[in-house]
């Protein structure tokens, strides 16, 4: 049977990189002593590893640092993201949306006629829910949606202004 070279190589690379478990390392050391094929493969990969270690970095032009420094002389460091994004606003938004969803659920379940006869299984409970009653008042839904959109728009303006202010200060 033809040996699985991919698996052998993967195990050997782990061994060379030193990322394998202690038990695996011992197993490979034994294989390297007893199995000629593993030994040949190991030396082959070791050569590749050494070659890769000997590869060199490329250098940019002599003017590189000067060019970068000239560019940044016209720039300012942007304020850290954490200074203009208030975590309380994110939490507030999260709580707002969760409250909205819970409110709709409570309202919807409140419309269900629980006294109707039938088996008391979960699927029957689910089937009893009249989903159309969740959004049965069109005017109310439109009103809520407009409020939500307005709220998000105002929040966006607020954050944009705050960011602009920080940038001006920086």
């Amino acid at each position, binding site marked *: 049977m033809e040996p699985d070279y991919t698996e052998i190589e993967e195990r050997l690379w782990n061994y060379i990189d030193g990322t394998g478990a202690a038990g695996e390392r011992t197993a490979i050391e034994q294989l390297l002593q007893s199995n000629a094929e593993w030994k040949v493969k190991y030396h082959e990969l070791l050569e590749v590893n050494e070659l890769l270690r000997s590869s060199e970095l490329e250098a940019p032009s002599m003017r*590189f640092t000067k060019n970068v420094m000239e560019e940044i002389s016209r720039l300012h460091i942007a304020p850290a993201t954490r200074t203009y994004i208030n975590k309380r606003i994110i939490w507030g938004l999260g709580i707002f949306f969760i409250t909205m969803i819970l409110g709709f659920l409570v309202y919807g379940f409140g419309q269900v006629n629980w006294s109707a006869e039938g088996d008391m299984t979960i699927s029957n409970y689910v089937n009893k829910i009249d989903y159309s009653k969740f959004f049965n008042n069109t005017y109310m839904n439109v009103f809520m949606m407009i409020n939500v959109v307005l709220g998000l728009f105002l929040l966006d303006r607020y954050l944009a202004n705050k960011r602009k202010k920080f940038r001006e200060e920086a």
Partner: protein
Amino acid sequence: MYVTCRQNGLSYTGRMSTGLNDSEIISKVLSGDQQAYAGLVNRYQTYVFTLALRFTKNREDAEEVSQDIFIKAYRALADFKGTSKFSTWLYTIVNNTCITFLRKKRLQTHSLDNEGVFEVADSQDSGLRANLVEQKSRVAMVNSAIGLLGPDDAEIITLFYKSEQTLEEIAQILGLETNTAKVRLHRARTRLKEKMQQHFSEEVKDIYN
């Protein structure tokens, strides 16, 4: 664990030209000493340029992309929290900027198995390869073989072997799980071995014998 890595990073990069370590330079820059940033540029320019070259395959584009990377890093320096090495943070910017560059150039970058990427690399680097055969230098052969790989493979090999990054840090830079990064590295090395055997069979024979 983090402290050890960080100390290793600093001891490696610490006293090259400015005498200050990365954190000290960053503090100086953030407190208004813009010129101190030159210390970071000098220290990391070869790493950044090499990584950019793995993507762009030509020096002019690599230089432009590298400059862009250092400018982005400067602008975002206040966002560096110090929870990782500065180099790891910088290479994340390198990775994102280079991917954006490739998208703009409409090259395929993400498929590890896409032979088309290698063909593009082959055609773009043929001049360098011809030059290399004459040099018969091991180092040049490896550098050229890496140049023949697709950007994903070339990047991960460079990060692991030349940029002093652990597999965990590479995973963080590339936005992958550590195990996925490990598998990618294995595959990249296998492909590199194939490229060397395919394009530099004579040199490879000399090495193995």
